[in-house]
């Protein structure tokens, strides 16, 4: 008798605990504050860098000190080498390339993804093309892009565009598939035309996946930047890094990497903000 009661009350405790655990969503770290953990990680990395260079463990040629990198940053910010573009100019040009390509990718990949997710024919046409080129490294088809489009801006933007396009299409397609059939049927039963369902239900319902796709796509865009600026570029962060590596200016190389990294990270933070503004309902229904 006593044991039975014990077990029964244990069970209720257990269910209560289970319920509480469900509410906390322990495997969803997004909801919880990670700022301090992340800051500590970055601080530890910087400290390790500073110690290893100031104690002379690593030669400055391989890893210059944080101070030297910061000096390179300050030096090239406005002036730098006479006759060479400033850091601000390089950054502006690279930003324009990455965002130009990114915007073009959004304008084209979202409609293509919607078409692929909703039409068998569109899926049949685009699927082999995208799946073929998607895993190729951009450096592999860079020569082809240059042969076809020349060495101007078009080739650079095309290369970044191609890198952004595929993940965004795939994300949009996944978004279309994630829209519950009940929502689509409900709209049809309220008298919606096919076009209205596409615009008011499928596009809206795909937004969480599309925004995730945008985050991935812009990441690929930054990754491809250096490759895009390898040939016949006078300005751009990628070009700056490549040029510096030819002159063994490791400080400028690291500075350029940090600038690219910080910009990409800042943009990702913006995208996360955008996500909470545009799709606050994500995962809640």
């Amino acid at each position: 008798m006593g044991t039975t009661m014990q077990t029964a009350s244990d069970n209720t405790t257990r269910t209560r605990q289970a319920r509480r655990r469900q509410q906390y969503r322990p495997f969803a770290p997004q909801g919880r504050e990670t700022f301090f953990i992340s800051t500590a990680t970055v601080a530890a990395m910087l400290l390790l860098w500073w110690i290893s260079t100031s104690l002379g463990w690593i030669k400055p040629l391989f890893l210059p000190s944080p101070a030297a990198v910061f000096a390179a940053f300050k030096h090239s910010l406005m002036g730098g080498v006479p006759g060479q573009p400033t850091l601000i100019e390089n950054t502006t040009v690279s930003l324009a390339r990455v965002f130009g390509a990114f915007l073009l990718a959004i304008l084209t990949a979202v409609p293509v993804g919607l078409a692929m997710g909703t039409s068998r024919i569109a899926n049949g046409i685009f699927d082999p093309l995208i799946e073929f080129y998607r895993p190729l490294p951009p450096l592999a088809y860079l020569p082809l892009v240059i042969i076809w489009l020349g060495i101007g801006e078009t080739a650079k933007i095309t290369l970044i565009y191609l890198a952004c396009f595929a993940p965004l299409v795939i994300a949009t397609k996944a978004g279309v598939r994630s829209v519950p059939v009940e929502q689509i049927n409900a709209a049809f039963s309220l008298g919606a035309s096919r076009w209205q369902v596409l615009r008011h239900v499928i596009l809206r319902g795909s937004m969480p996946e599309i925004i995730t796709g945008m985050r991935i796509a812009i990441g690929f865009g930054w990754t491809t930047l250096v490759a895009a600026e390898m040939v016949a570029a006078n300005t751009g962060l990628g070009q700056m890094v490549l040029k510096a590596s030819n002159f063994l200016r490791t400080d400028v190389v690291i500075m350029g990497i940090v600038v690219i990294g910080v910009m990409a990270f800042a943009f990702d933070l913006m995208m996360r903000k955008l996500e909470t503004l545009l799709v606050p309902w994500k995962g809640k229904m």
Partner: protein
Amino acid sequence: MLDIDHLTIEYTSPKAPPTVALQDVDLHIGVGEFVVALGASGCGKTTLLNAIAGFIPPTRGTIALGGEPVIGPGRERGVVFQKHALMPWLSVLENVEFGLMLQGIPLHERRPIAKETLRRVGLAKAANRPVYELSGGMQQRVGVARAITASPEVMLLDEPLGALDAFTRESIQELLLDLWHASDRLFFFITHDVEEALFLATRLIVMAPSPGRIAHEYAPTFSSQFMDRRDARKVKSSAEFIRMREEVLDVVRSISAGEH
């Protein structure tokens, strides 16, 4: 008004032999009836609703509404789903006026209509809340309001109360009877809950599985008793209700035991 003749629906798959979800169903429903389809899962009741809604084409037979054959979904047949059917990116009010928006009715005209419906379903205060923050019962009220705002001739409700607690269920049952009574609409409601079926229906069809078909029909009068006396508990605890509930339960039980 709604005429279903010799309706057979088979699901075909390339590997398995076709499954007969509904076989030779005949059903003729008049204006103002509250039809409830009752049955265990697998008896084809959801298939029947989906066919009337136009989501599934008949394999054989016909469905016609007011003489017009049903081909595909349409505005004259509103649907309330069990779940996942509200648009989470829209507010409660925007969900309710969604059908009017699709028709191109301007904001200043559709907004008052939607607000009035929300008041009728008891959600006037929740108009501007996001739907994903609402409780399950409130979400279903929004679903009902959304369907009815588009002024359909037929309301199709696919187990809308299946996931709700008993108290919420009962209050929405009363709401549905009020909405039904205030219009001459035809309601077609699906449930696996015998008590709910008896309380709501003017016509109760009990369905049997493999192949899906109508096994029994009843004509309960409890909904009109409720409309007169406004006391759901009293209606549901009356001797007549309990007697009929046991009778229908026996039928449902013998159907699942395979005696039909």
